[in-house]
């Protein structure tokens, strides 16, 4: 393992998680989680198709972008909703998240 590998992931994780917290303060509840998940999926899709540097992938891919988005908070929030609300939350995160990731990948490939 590159000596700087875990350090870069750690710094990126600190930044990504803190940014997610700030979005959660600005947009509390499921809306904030949806926002980070969709935005992060789009940027990660564009990132992995344009940046090949391993160090950049550790810092921004494994670090910032993966920590900015979250599956556990999405799952816990979904479990706490009514059946209808839960299905809507799943549909919104999945549909928008997958489309955002696909758009990011497509955009990155055109560069």
């Amino acid at each position, binding site marked *: 393992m590159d000596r700087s590998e875990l350090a870069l992931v750690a710094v990126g*994780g600190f930044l990504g*998680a803190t940014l*997610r917290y700030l979005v959660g303060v600005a947009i509390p509840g499921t809306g904030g989680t949806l926002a*980070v998940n969709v935005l992060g999926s789009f*940027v990660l899709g564009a990132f992995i198709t344009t940046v090949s540097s391993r160090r950049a992938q550790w810092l921004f891919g494994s670090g910032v972008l993966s920590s900015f988005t979250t*599956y*556990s908070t999405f*799952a816990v929030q979904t479990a706490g909703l009514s059946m209808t609300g839960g299905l809507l939350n799943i549909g919104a995160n999945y549909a928008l998240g997958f489309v955002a990731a696909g758009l990011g*990948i497509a955009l990155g490939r055109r560069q």
Partner: protein
Amino acid sequence: MSLTLTSALLVGLGGMAGATSRHVVDQQLVGKWSTFTVNVLGSIALGFIVTAPVGDVTATLAGTGFCGAFTTFSSFAVGVAELVDVGDYRTAAWYAFGTLLAALVGVVIGGAVGGSVG
């Protein structure tokens, strides 16, 4: 959750540990099984934290910080999009709904254990 510098620092420190732990799992498991594993384990852990009698500091550090960063939606969504891109719709559907089912069951189990230790 209100904005405080202490909370932001706790989330950042938890995120630092969560991201490096996820990265270590990434090096042990192949491809999408790694993302599946961290997302399910992290959902069990967060389900526990939100029902267990832990204080605000632990919830912010271990829940919002560690579990939030240990699990990832972006790698998961990119993984699904890549499967769709190559036309492997069956694996994409298994991956998407398998993760969802396992994570939700994990939240319920973690929550039941967390609630029982109160």
